């Protein structure tokens, strides 16, 4: 029985409702609001949340950027962004006008103190007028060069702390640093102004339903966990391939490369989820504690070993799905003798009780034949051949593939008898989200923005995770810089990467999965 005079600590009307609680009214301040991310991802995600009745009344957005726009222009731009990018198609005019009442624009430079004073006034005004109660989310959607200045200015104007008992959080987009030192530096700057629980480092991969399902799959099913270790697993392959080239991001990409752009964040996240120990609870710190343990257990690749453990590539011209693709060095914004890798494959070992000796092969690249993300766990083969007059290697190993995109699902390859013949053939058992559940999954940004507003950091990256990941990546870059070998285009756009990557696997008696 509830004590009749007790004060409510939770909302009793929430019981039995299938959708989660709504966040408290808040204002989201988007720095760099004139950029692509805002109109392509952030605002469509916010609008979809409003459409699904997941946002509270009073929710407000302030766009902060340099361009001389007014509120109306900003709203129009966002509206066309939603029209073009929302998974629900064009905006519903009545709904949009209610949603857009909370959207305003603030013109200012990121280093202009006066603009932050104005921002502070605007926030206070919204607290009073729209009941946002001092709750704020600052979203850094700017080029990373501006992060430091914005963080500093927010601190200088007292904006890192909320009035009225509200909360303040800050979301930082990737890239989070470009090496271990700069990531540490950025963390130091952030944590000089904010506390770690206020900081939400976003990796949109973690917002994908199938990525979240890795944990459900591993820890809500009893049959896989006993097989999930060095005794049963031969090796693990993690692939994130893109079929596009660098398109209009040449300038950015040429300073980044596949190792920074994909491996350091997305693939390392996938690796930690697939290799981590069961957390003691499904909450932000318990899950991230286990993930960071995996990263710390990875055997470092020293600069002088890079050629042995890492293969890099750069695409030349070719075609993908019948569409011609210009060679990387001929893309706009790319240096003519660029040494930036557009493909990288590496072998990692996790030196833990569970995974000792099991190689984890990671590969990611651009201008590959298909856009695929998957994790494949290949099990050891049976020890002897019992059936027919066939060599043992005629039996294919069992493979459990967790597909993240495009066909989200899980596939298990097992051997089966061919009817009427003494022959064993691999068959796949497919579980596809798309065929078992016909309901559309929310976009990654919808989930992540909502989680941040609800104060749940489980799907965001913690300081120690980011730094542990960079500490694996940075020595590889050092190895490349100090080595004598020069990178030249070594794979054709539309192929599965450089020949060296295949040889790299063959050396270990293995092959890449054909995807």
């Amino acid at each position: 029985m509830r004590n009749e005079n007790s004060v409510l600590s939770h909302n009793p009307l929430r019981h039995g409702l299938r959708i989660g609680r709504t966040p408290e009214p808040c204002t989201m301040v988007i720095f760099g609001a004139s950029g692509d991310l805002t109109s392509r991802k952030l605002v469509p995600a916010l609008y979809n949340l409003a459409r699904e009745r997941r946002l509270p009344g009073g929710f407000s957005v302030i766009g902060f950027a340099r361009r001389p726009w007014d509120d109306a222009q900003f709203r129009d731009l966002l509206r066309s962004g939603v029209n073009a990018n929302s998974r629900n198609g064009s905006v519903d005019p009545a709904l949009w006008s209610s949603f857009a009442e909370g959207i305003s624009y603030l013109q200012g430079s990121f280093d202009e103190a006066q603009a932050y004073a104005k921002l502070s006034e605007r926030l206070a005004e919204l607290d009073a007028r729209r009941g946002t109660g001092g709750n704020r989310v600052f979203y850094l959607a700017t080029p990373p060069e501006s992060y430091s200045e914005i963080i500093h200015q927010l601190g200088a104007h007292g904006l890192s702390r909320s009035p009225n008992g509200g909360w303040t959080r800050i979301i930082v987009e990737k890239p989070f640093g470009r090496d271990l030192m700069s990531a540490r530096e950025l963390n130091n700057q952030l944590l000089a102004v904010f506390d770690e629980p206020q900081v939400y480092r976003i990796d949109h991969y973690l917002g994908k339903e199938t990525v979240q399902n890795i944990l459900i799959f591993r820890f809500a099913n009893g049959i896989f966990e006993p097989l999930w270790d060095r005794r049963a697993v031969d090796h693990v392959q993690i692939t994130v391939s893109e079929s596009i080239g660098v398109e209009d991001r040449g300038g950015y990409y040429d300073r980044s490369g596949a190792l920074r752009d994909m491996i350091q964040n997305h693939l390392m996240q996938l690796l930690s989820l697939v290799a981590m120990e069961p957390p003691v609870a499904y909450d932000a710190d318990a899950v991230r504690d286990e993930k960071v343990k995996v990263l710390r257990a990875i055997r470092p690749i020293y600069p002088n070993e890079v050629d042995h453990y890492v293969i890099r590539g750069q695409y030349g011209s070719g075609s993908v799905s019948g569409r011609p693709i210009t060679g990387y060095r001929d893309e706009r914004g790319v240096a003519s003798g660029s040494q930036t890798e557009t493909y990288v494959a590496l072998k990692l070992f996790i030196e833990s009780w569970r995974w000792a000796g099991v190689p984890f092969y990671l590969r990611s690249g651009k201008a590959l034949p298909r856009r695929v993300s998957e994790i494949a766990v290949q099990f050891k083969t049976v020890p002897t051949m019992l059936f027919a007059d066939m060599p043992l290697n005629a039996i294919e190993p069992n493979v459990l593939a967790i597909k993240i995109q495009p066909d989200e699902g899980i596939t298990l390859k097992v051997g089966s008898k061919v009817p009427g013949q003494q022959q064993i053939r691999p068959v796949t058992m497919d579980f596809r989200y798309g065929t078992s559940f016909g309901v559309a999954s929310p976009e990654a940004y919808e989930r992540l923005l909502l989680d941040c507003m609800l104060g749940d950091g489980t799907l965001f990256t913690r300081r120690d995770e980011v730094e542990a990941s960079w500490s694996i990546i940075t020595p590889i870059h050092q190895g490349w810089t100090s080595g004598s070998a020069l990178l030249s285009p070594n794979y054709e756009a539309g192929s599965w990467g450089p020949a060296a990557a295949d040889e790299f696997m063959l050396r270990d008696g293995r092959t890449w999965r054909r995807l």
Partner: protein
Amino acid sequence: MIDISTIERELRQLWKEGAGSTAGGQAMTRALTLNLVARAQDGPSAEQMGAVIQQLTASHPSRAVLARMRPTLDEPRLEAFVQANCLLVTQGAPQICGEQITIDAQGSAVTQVASLVLALLVPDLPVALWLPGPAPLEDPLLLRLRGVITRLIVDTRDAHDAVRALAHLAAFQATEARATRQVLGISDLAWAILTPWRELIAQFFDTRPLLPHLQRIDQVLITYQPGERREGLALSLLLAGWLTASLGWVMLDQALSVEEGTVRLHLRRPAVGRGPNAIRLITIDLIPTAPSRDEPPAITSLCLRAIDGVSADFCVERGEEANYATTKAHVAGHPPISRLVRCETPTLADLLAAELRLLNRDQTFATALQSAGIFAEWLPA
């Protein structure tokens, strides 16, 4: 007469053909998440239910057994045929398919349907029994299948008197709760249609500063479009039952009055902050709006109001356009905050899908129904 092995052979054949053919270039995949047994009373309703089952494939691919029962026809007859229910959700994605067995029974042969259904259930999957129509609780199929079904789905709005049906369903639930066998999940589609109302009212109090007001509510006003069989009143009773049960309000004995069509329920709650035994009275008014032929029976607004001390008002109102609602929160001393939300009228398939998503007994519904059943008993016929 029907041979189960023939039906099963036909089903196998169906999937085999499906696997071979690629309708529109799309692969076909079999996925089953439950057994859905449905009973139709005539041809047109069987057709309508078949269409709903097909739409349900998107979220709940199932083995559906649709029984068309016509006991009043003289000649006893029992026939069955199979079909795959396939749905192409998005272009390029594989089709989602479920399978459907339609049983056509008439005359005395209707008594054999239950045994046929039992033989056709896919093992180890939940079994839902969907009984639309005015008197589901007296349906012979329910009695025969009670031991195997995990969920019963009815719609009290189908009854000749929806308010009486609510009282019956509450009594049935109480009897079931006393039975020792596996607990049966009960779903009323009239309850499912209230979900957006519950959700929108609950959202006000997800906010920390507003949560304390939930303990200070003095008045509830519910307006509804009545309908010819008291469906609107039954819906408002379910909402009143939900608030009463969720907020721990205590019913005063037989405290119900009716004036000019408005039903007023009297309850009490603890008076927070006024000492351990202090109480305050609460009223819930159920107010019919002018009946309209074009408007289906439905809730049109729901307001929670605190008047003692700081006055506060929390309202959800259906918009002039059917697909929207407006939410308004106004606490004295603060500017009112309102927003427009999308609130589309769910289809029958949406309502069923929402209920089938539940794996266990819906405790919130169970307690709401219990309170609503008591209110319904108090109401004059």
